[in-house]
Structures are given as C-alpha cells and as structure tokens.
C-alpha cells in the first residue's frame, strides 16, 4: 500500500507543482516548465543503457519547446557564429528514396538550408526547431544564451511527466500520432506527410505531455549531456533523445522515454536539434 501511495505522490505531485511552474524567461522566447525537486524513477528493468533506477533532482526549468530557427538566428546575428556544417561542409540531409538509415551528403546544407539549398530554406519555418547543427553548435548557443543542455536524466524526468512507462501515456505506441511528428511510412523510399509534415513541424504543433512539454517525442532528436554505461572509455560520442520526424516504428523507434541514441559530436543532421535548461 505504501508503494502505491508513493507511486501516486510521484505521479501527481509534480503535476500540481507544474501549475505554478510554467513561466517565461527574460530575453528568451521559450517558455519553461519547472520540474520539482524530488526522486524520480527512470529507465527500464534490465536495459543496459538505461537501467531501472531512482534519481534525485534538486529541480530544474526546461524549455517547453525545442529551440527554434528564430532563436538560433538571434544567436548567429549577435555573434557571427559559423556552424560546423558551414565550415566543414559535412551535413547529412534527407530526401525520399533513400534506403533505411541512409542520408545524403550535401555540402550546401546548414541550419538555414537544413536539407540543402535545392530543398529550400527556413524563411517560412522560423518557428520550426533548428536542425543541421552539431552538438558543438548547440553548446555554443547555450554558452551565449546563458542556458545549458539537459542531462540525460533531466530529459527523461521531464519527458516521462511522472509516468513509469515507455511513453508518458503508457506502453502502447498507438497514441503517438497525437503527440509527435514522426515518419509513418513503412520505409523511406516514398515521401510521407500523413501527419502534415515530411520534415520538421512548427514547435508545439502536437499535443504536449502532461507537464506541458511539446515534441518530447518526434520532430527532432534533442542533444543531452551525459554518458551511457556502454560508452567506450575515452569515447567522445554524444547522445540525443526522443526520436525525430525521420523515425518510424520500423526503423529507429526511439520516440520514447527509454531509448538513447549516440552520434559523433561534429555530426550535423536535419533531424538533430535541442531544447535548453535554465542555468
């Protein structure tokens, strides 16, 4: 019985605290969700990269949405920052027709042209998440804006919204389409826009999780800080979570609160972005 009470307290108390916790920050367009101090159950039993465990946080404020092109443009305009993809011409982009897990090398792609110049810019997509940036670019933004990336644990606490399940609504994938911009096609040989978007969608186009966070699953993978138990010693790979518009149930179904991806820190993909946490 005490376990049951603990569960209910863990599940509902943060929701009540949240009611007073959603707020805006001076100088930033994002809204932030306050996650209350407490102990949270994370991971899944027996899962090596994310074992079942209880984690304590002193509380933090995490952006309700992914960082937008408009936000990133302010940073670039203020600093003249040049991203990895612009310098190294090594961005990887997507067009329908590619085999699973294949991306196209495009030297013209960077955050203003996330899938290359011939596939259009972001002029009418300033409210979409910024993509085709590397982890290093995300850190540069954070340093400028006085914010930081969430840790792997913080991201999971916020995405779960108190739920112990694979998704914040349970273990079944079915409700996903109400909450996430993901790929619905069987493969990536044909374009898929059945949810209205083939690539990114404007942030907060889908329903939020119970704590008011949008696009925690789908839209773009979100860079986080932290290491996995399976990271090799000395490895410099970084991690991102939540799945993306590219992800389908057949290929990379990482649009959940359990799976954690790995990517090189200099990699720039049009399905990789981030959300921030207040320092």
């Amino acid at each position, binding site marked *: 019985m005490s376990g*049951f009470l603990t*569960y*209910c307290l863990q*599940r*509902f108390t943060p929701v009540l605290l949240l009611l007073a916790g959603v707020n805006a920050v001076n100088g930033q367009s994002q809204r932030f969700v306050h996650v209350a101090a407490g102990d949270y159950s994370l991971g*899944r*039993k*027996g*899962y*090596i*990269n994310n074992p079942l465990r209880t984690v304590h946080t002193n509380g933090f404020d995490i952006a309700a949405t992914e960082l937008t092109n408009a936000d990133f443009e302010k940073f670039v305009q203020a600093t003249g920052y040049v991203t990895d993809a612009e310098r*190294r011409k*090594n961005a*990887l982009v997507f067009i329908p027709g590619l085999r*699973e*897990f*294949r*991306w196209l*090398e495009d030297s013209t792609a960077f955050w203003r042209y996330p899938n290359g110049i011939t596939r259009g810019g972001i002029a009418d997509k300033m409210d979409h998440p910024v993509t085709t940036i590397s982890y*290093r670019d995300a850190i540069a933004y954070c340093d400028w804006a006085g914010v930081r990336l969430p840790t792997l644990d913080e991201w999971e606490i916020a995405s779960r919204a108190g*739920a*112990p*399940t*694979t998704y914040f609504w*349970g*273990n*079944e994938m079915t409700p996903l389409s109400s909450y996430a911009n993901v790929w619905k096609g*069987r493969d990536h040989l044909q374009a898929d826009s059945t949810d209205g978007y083939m690539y990114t969608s404007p942030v907060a186009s889908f329903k939020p999780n119970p704590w008011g966070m949008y696009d925690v699953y789908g839209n773009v*993978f979100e860079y986080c800080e932290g290491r996995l138990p*399976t990271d090799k010693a000395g490895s*410099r*790979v970084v*991690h*991102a979570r939540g*799945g*993306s518009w*590219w*992800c389908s*149930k*057949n*290929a*990379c*179904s*990482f649009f959940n609160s359990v*799976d954690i*991806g*790995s*990517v*090189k*820190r*200099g*990699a720039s*993909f049009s*399905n*990789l972005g981030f959300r921030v946490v207040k320092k």
Partner: protein
Amino acid sequence: MKYLMFVTAILGCLHLSAQEQGAEWRAPSNSSKAYGTYRNKLTVPPYGLARVTALIGKIPYAEDDSSPMSNKDYMSLSLREKFTYHMIHMEINAQNCDVRPPIQDEDKKIFGMMADGFSESVWSDRQVKFMISNRDSVMALIKESTDRSKRMGANYKMAIVEINGRELIPYIIEVYNRDKKDRDLLTLLMLLMKNNEYRPFMESQSFRKLYGADANYQSYIDYNKANEDLIIKRATDYYNTVRK
C-alpha cells in the same frame, strides 16, 4: 464527484502499473552478450594495412567526426589498399539512432538485419561507388581474406549487401557450415534474396516476420535447425535461378 475523481485516479494508476508489468525486460545473458560482441566484429584486411592505418591517422577531427581521407592520399592507394581502407574506415557520420541497444538472447535469434560493427559511422558515396565499380575484385578479396582469417566480419557481410554479391551465395553457405556460429551469414542470405525480390522468399512467413509491415530492425526468427535448413535451401534455390 470527488469520490468519482478519486476512483478514476486509482483506476488510472492501476492501469499504468499493469502496463508497466507488460514491459518486463531481462538483462542479456553472458552468452547473449558474447555473441553480440562476436557478430559486431570486423575483419581487418591485411593488404597494405600499416600504410592505410598511417594515412587514416592523418585525417583531422577523427575523434569527433567520421571524415574522409584526403583525395590526394586516397588516390595514392592501390586497389587492395583502398579495399583495406574501406573495410576499416567509414567516411561519414551515422545518424543518432543507428546504434542498437543490447539485445536479449541474441545468440538464439536469426535477425532480419545484420550487426554493422561500425557504430557511429557509415560508408560514403565515394566508398560505395568504389565497391560497386570493383565488385569482382571486392568479392575476390573478401573470399581470400575470409579464408585466411577463418571468419567473415560484419564489414565484409555489409560490403556483400552493398555490391549485391549474390554470386557469393554458395561461398557464404560454405563459410556458415564451417562452424555454424555466425547467424548473420543466414541473415546475409536472406538480405540477398530480399534485395533481389526472390518471390518464394518474399511470400514466406519468415519474410513477413522479418521485413513485413510490422517488422523493425530487431525483428528475428528463432535460431533452430528447421529455420537454418530452410534459409539455406531457399538461398540455394535462388542461386540456381540466377547463376549463368
């Protein structure tokens, strides 16, 4: 009304608890983990290895990016050295979700997709084009190196898929039958049948389970004698339809 809300909240909690129980996971056994390591291992070709390794060492940003060797260095490599380079170094970054998490009972399954062994990197256009343009040489080198090292690494199997090396089907079966240890060789046979749209395979139950509408990158069939025999028979039948 308050009573109804309370009951609803309790039922909601119980429902979630039931779902949680449905997501039970077990840690992979030691034999499963050992097999996972085995199937991810690459075969390192011996051809000009020291020189190729030295040139790879010159590639900038190697720790943070999967980057190509400079064109000048690349063009200076012989065909055999280029083969070695491609088999040990992938030139572009893999996307974030490409790395698969550890799998339970990996040693008791025949997967629809092979382990790739390269983690955060994939072959570039230049690398794939080389393999396809030189597919006869690539197949010969794979055979030579496999016979020498007594195993066919994850990179060789991936290369065979890239070049659609269906001519190697009898050889793949021969390598498999040497110790029947590497079930990804059976997966390789199935991928060759799938990629060439061999109808008897595509109409099979195995195909539906491994590559059908609900399949994903961890879909598998059980490893047992019947499945093993069936895959080998189908691949042999397929080979007999295409050999000249």
